[in-house]
């Protein structure tokens, strides 16, 4: 086929380079309208003859043509299946892609849906609608001209049909009407739609703020030209704005050239920047620099006009910020370079009636949003999604619109949905296409399989996992071989046997990247048939595995390593507890027990060696929520128990991962999927070093080994929990470990800081992590069990994949934590408990307290509204003093915890001090209060648990 058309040249001159490109004009582009006799029918057109757009502005059925601004601003309206038979011009389509990739993706989703009847008309390559760009006119004007020209062409091309142009650009609309094109704004159009239902709620309010009312609350932003000019001259600086979670009047901007983030404070400092926005800032002279306030301020404003309370809080803020040695570069936001507004989950504040409502986002970094709705009473009971449209100067809050409701506030399902949405976790059902990739049941092992795999069915292999685990990735064995040596095998579920590259199931798994664990709910990366059955190395069943087998001496030195695919039959799927009992029970002498004992012995040596090399032992609280299986309500929250066997399994998984990393890097120097944990910059450790210093410890941070040692040495006899607290703080100083293809970095950057190994990867959990599947495929190639495919060896593709995996992993981790947090709240509902806590941070007006038993962090305010504080804050030592009681970082306290449900929309913990006793501030212990009464709800405060139980690594996330 050969149809070249006459062409014109496109000149793009810049940087003294003359770029000439071809632009072909075609005669085979269809208008897309069904039954058009002039064009060749376009099979891909979804435009419908039967659909009718009923808008009372027009007394005829019509096709709709959209201007770019409608698509960019009103996607929420377009996504509703109301307006259909829409023609998207190619010039508009391209501009949308340039302006906003997320919107472009959403537009594509609509275009792909046949029932929405959208069609892309390639006007810029069509012989009749192409308009050459002229140098004299602006791009924007040119695009508008193209839109009008294409609309006019449609009207002439199909006289029997009608076409309506919707645009919010006044000039374009007037010119269109002057040119006999029916045109209107989206607001008019939606208002006159017959079946609009609540579509008006979803209209973006971007252009509605022009009417200026009342006084102006914020200083104006500079124009884009002024901003760019200022940045060019070095007067202004560009950076991403990060709002403080604790103080709504404070934020930070990371600016190139400054090691510390630049601090902005107050209404005029933040000047309508929203978390994530790219802003331009002016940095003050050094004399005006201040330190971050270290106070906690919550925005409890109720309406968009009143700002008295903000003014008051700004005063508080001003009083607390001092110009001392801790000053940070300070500045103010003078303009917004790019908004990064997204959709936000949250609830309505609900204390006002009428169409204007204040929306409170769940994310505390995001300001409240004013929305307009005609269904406020219903929405007050719902969790909802809202997006921001604009933030005019006269409004205290940004203006936005309602996108959709997620469900009733407080219900388990709604909250799960919120958590999944907030963290961008793909959680829809697996599609038919994905499910069709699953193997047919009954699944049997064929002779062919037996020929290609090493048969290990006669070896006594077992698995050790948490109780209730159904996706068993790994199993182990250990048996003595000749000369007193030991053979140790790690057998990993052979997921890559079932998930072949490029299939629907593979693409889906790659996009999900990881299985997400919420309380009482698991969102699988691969369908259940694989995750809980065919891949899961269940006890007593024959399964395919990828084995890593070492020959070791009694000192856990590796003498030989081999990898192969195998068939195994796990003798028993044990829990950590069962395995521990088996090891400890000396009367058990069967091969499984012996094998576990040997493994445990080796693991201890491995662990010791690893720690000597400088591997960090960090701490985080991982809690487990016991659920009532019927009501799905949390029964109890407890810290997960750790056994020696946890560490045993972990050691061998680490060892297998390291062995595999070495192997695949050898064979694929360019595209081995590895995992690195970057060394944190020294400034990250500031809080840790500071806390250590005040407690009299010198925390060395120059290298991982010294850090590990100084953490080991930081022990105080009178506060056994102190060491754990320090380790928790150290955990927070770390950077995230990330996946990367080996070809993209220098070898010295491959280092894993936390584990103190030069090479690391993930091999041992392919059922729940996609990275492991890739590693399996690479390893399969190295041992000639499988062949490569293009994307596997493409550095670029691998790099993109890694980015997605890293993003999804981070989100999955946050989602898991959010789910635990919600369930902890639920558990505390209606309960009143005295709990043992520890001071995590001492702030100027509050104490941040950690309750290890629940892994809960809460804030105890030291000053009540309108009262003068009885506490004295000492900046030198970071302590709070009242009478003879002094609070240091990490001090134990007994606190009363209550969930304040007086406002069902906004539950929060109230914290009261029980011990140490401070007259006029503390409350008396519950036990005293309830003497003689029945003890319902109150539990004795737990004795401090053995440290070893609480000090631990979060096996699933931290490595």
């Amino acid at each position, binding site marked *: 086929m050969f149809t070249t058309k006459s062409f014109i040249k496109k000149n793009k001159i810049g940087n003294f380079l003359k770029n000439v490109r071809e632009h072909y004009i075609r005669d085979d582009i269809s208008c897309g309208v069904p039954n058009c006799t002039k064009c060749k029918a376009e099979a891909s057109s979804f435009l419908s003859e039967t659909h009718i757009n009923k808008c009372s502005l027009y007394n005829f059925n019509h096709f709709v043509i959209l201007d770019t601004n409608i698509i960019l601003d009103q996607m929420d309206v377009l996504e509703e299946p109301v307006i259909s038979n829409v023609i998207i011009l190619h010039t508009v389509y391209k501009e949308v892609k340039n302006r906003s990739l997320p919107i472009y993706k959403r537009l594509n989703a609509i275009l792909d849906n046949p029932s929405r009847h959208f069609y892309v008309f390639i006007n810029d390559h069509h012989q009749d609608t192409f308009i050459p760009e002229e140098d004299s006119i602006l791009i924007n004007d040119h695009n508008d001209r193209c839109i009008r020209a294409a609309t006019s062409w449609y009207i002439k091309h199909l006289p029997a049909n009608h076409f309506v142009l919707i645009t919010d650009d006044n000039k374009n609309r007037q010119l269109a009407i002057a040119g006999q094109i029916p045109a209107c704004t989206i607001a008019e159009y939606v208002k006159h739609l017959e079946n609009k239902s609540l579509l008006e709620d979803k209209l973006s309010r971007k252009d509605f703020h022009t009417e200026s009312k009342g006084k102006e609350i914020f200083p104006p932003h500079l124009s884009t030209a002024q901003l760019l000019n200022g940045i060019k001259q070095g007067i202004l600086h560009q950076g991403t704005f990060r709002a403080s979670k604790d103080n709504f009047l404070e934020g930070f901007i990371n600016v190139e050239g400054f090691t510390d983030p630049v601090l902005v404070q107050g209404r005029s400092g933040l000047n309508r920047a929203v978390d994530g926005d790219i802003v331009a800032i002016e940095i003050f002279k050094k004399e005006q620099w201040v330190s971050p306030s270290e106070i906690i301020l919550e925005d409890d404003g109720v309406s968009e006009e009143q700002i008295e309370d903000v003014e008051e809080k700004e005063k508080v803020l001003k009083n607390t910020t001092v110009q001392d040695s801790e000053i940070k570069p300070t500045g103010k936001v003078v303009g917004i370079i790019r908004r990064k507004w997204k959709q936000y989950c949250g609830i309505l504040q609900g204390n006002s009636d009428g169409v204007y409502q204040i929306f409170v986002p769940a994310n505390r970094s995001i300001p409240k949003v004013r929305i307009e709705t005609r269904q406020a009473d219903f929405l007050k009971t719902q969790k909802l999604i809202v997006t921001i449209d604009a933030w005019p100067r006269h409004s205290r809050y940004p203006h936005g619109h309602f996108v959709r409701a997620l469900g009733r506030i407080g219900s388990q399902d709604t909250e799960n949905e919120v958590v999944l949405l907030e963290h961008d976790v793909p959680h829809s059902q697996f599609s038919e296409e994905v499910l069709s990739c699953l193997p047919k049941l009954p699944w049997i092992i064929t002779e062919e399989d037996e020929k290609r795999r090493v048969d290990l069915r006669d070896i006594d292999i077992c698995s050790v996992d948490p109780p209730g685990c159904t996706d068993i990735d790994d199993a182990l064995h250990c048996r003595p071989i000749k000369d007193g040596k030991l053979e140790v095998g790690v057998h990993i579920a052979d997921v890559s046997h079932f998930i072949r590259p490029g299939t629907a199931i593979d693409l889906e798994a790659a996009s999900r990247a990881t299985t997400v664990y919420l309380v009482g709910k698991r969102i699988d990366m691969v369908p259940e048939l694989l995750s809980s059955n065919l891949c899961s190395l269940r006890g007593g069943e024959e399964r395919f595995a990828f084995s890593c087998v070492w020959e070791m001496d009694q000192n856990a030195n590796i003498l030989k390593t081999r990898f192969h695919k195998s068939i195994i039959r796990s003798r028993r799927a044990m829990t950590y507890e069962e395995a521990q009992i088996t090891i400890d029970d000396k009367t058990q002498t069967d091969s499984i027990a012996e094998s576990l004992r040997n493994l445990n012995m080796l693991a201890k040596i491995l662990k010791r060696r690893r720690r000597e090399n400088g591997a960090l032992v960090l701490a985080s609280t991982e809690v487990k929520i016991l659920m009532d299986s019927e009501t799905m309500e949390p029964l109890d929250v407890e810290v997960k128990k750790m056994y020696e066997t946890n560490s045993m399994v972990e050691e061998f998984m680490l060892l297998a991962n390291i062995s595999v990393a070495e192997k695949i890097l050898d064979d694929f120097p360019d595209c081995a999927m590895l995992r690195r944990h970057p060394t944190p910059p020294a400034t990250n450790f500031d809080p840790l070093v500071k806390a250590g210093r005040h407690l009299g410890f010198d925390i060395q941070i120059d290298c991982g080994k010294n850090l590990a040692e100084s953490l080991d040495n930081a022990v105080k006899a009178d506060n056994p929990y102190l060491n754990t607290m320090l380790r928790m703080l150290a955990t927070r100083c770390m950077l995230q470990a990330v996946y990367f293809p080996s070809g993209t970095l220098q070898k010295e950057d491959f280092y894993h800081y936390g584990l103190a190994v030069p090479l690391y990867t993930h091999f041992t959990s392919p059922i729940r992590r996609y990275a492991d599947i890739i590693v399996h495929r690479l390893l399969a190639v190295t041992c000639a069990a499988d062949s490569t495919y293009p994307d596997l060896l*493409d550095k670029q593709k691998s790099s993109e994949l890694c980015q997605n995996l890293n993003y999804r992993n981070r989100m999955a981790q946050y989602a898991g934590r959010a789910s635990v947090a919600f369930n902890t709240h639920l558990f505390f509902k209606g309960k009143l408990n005295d709990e043992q806590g520890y001071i995590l941070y001492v702030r100027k007006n509050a104490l941040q307290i950690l309750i290890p038993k629940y892994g809960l962090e809460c804030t105890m305010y030291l000053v009540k509204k309108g009262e003068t504080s009885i506490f004295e804050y000492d900046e030198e030592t970071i302590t709070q003093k009242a009478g003879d009681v002094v609070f240091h970082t990490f001090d134990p306290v007994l606190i009363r915890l209550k969930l304040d449900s007086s406002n069902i929309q906004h539950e929060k913990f109230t914290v009261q001090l029980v011990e140490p006793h401070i007259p006029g501030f503390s409350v008396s212990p519950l036990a005293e209060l309830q003497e003689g009464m029945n003890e319902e709800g109150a539990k004795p405060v737990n004795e401090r648990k053995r440290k070893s139980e609480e000090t631990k690594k979060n096996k699933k996330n931290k490595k």
Partner: protein
Amino acid sequence: MSKNKELISKIGLRLDGRRADELRRIRCKMGVFAQPDGSAYIEQGLTKVLAAVYGPHQVKNRQKAQHDTCIINTQFSMAVFSTNERKKRPRGDRKSTEMSLHLQQALAAVIETDLYPWSQIDVYVEVLHADGGIYPACVNAATLAIIDAGIPIKEYVCACTATLANNEIPMLDISHQEEVLGGATLTVAALPMSGKIVLMEMSQRFHLDHLPKVLNKALEGCKDIKVILDEAVKNHVAEMGSSTGWANSRT
């Protein structure tokens, strides 16, 4: 990275409005110079190449002369104004030498060299404007110039580029813009009638699984080009003939 850019949009068009299997517009003219024995000018999209052929004539360096075949001497050059940046391009740099060699290889496959022992054919190609697919344009121009010179050939030798768009769709005749945005480009010189491949070159590493479909696409391109060149030759001959009255009998 720019590599992520889609070379073929969702609606199936390339950046310049072509479909995946369409060549750029080819315009060509034979006999553009009087001095050489044969000459041709070709435009493939914005890539413009001049070719001139001298010979067969006596071998200049007698020591190199061969008793059973003729020497094909090729020389490739690029005009200083041929790319965005004005750049002095010395003759005989690594790239030109390689191009010359590849060109020689392609022409040696079709010229009936054994008809001209002890002699030499000189082929000069000059790129006037480069917009991707330089080598194919040179081969195609040289083929026309050789025909213009009246040197007997076995069949046409045509060349074409192809690549894989969006990592799945094979795509023909790659422009400079697409070269920059896309991945590996495959250049193929082939004898379209017999389907023989004379030369094949990849610009980058490339997974073997992709090769068959991209190669097929490039071969298709060579065949399409052959049709166009053939047409040009027929027109040229008719034109020449009509001026001498030779072709009058046909019309």
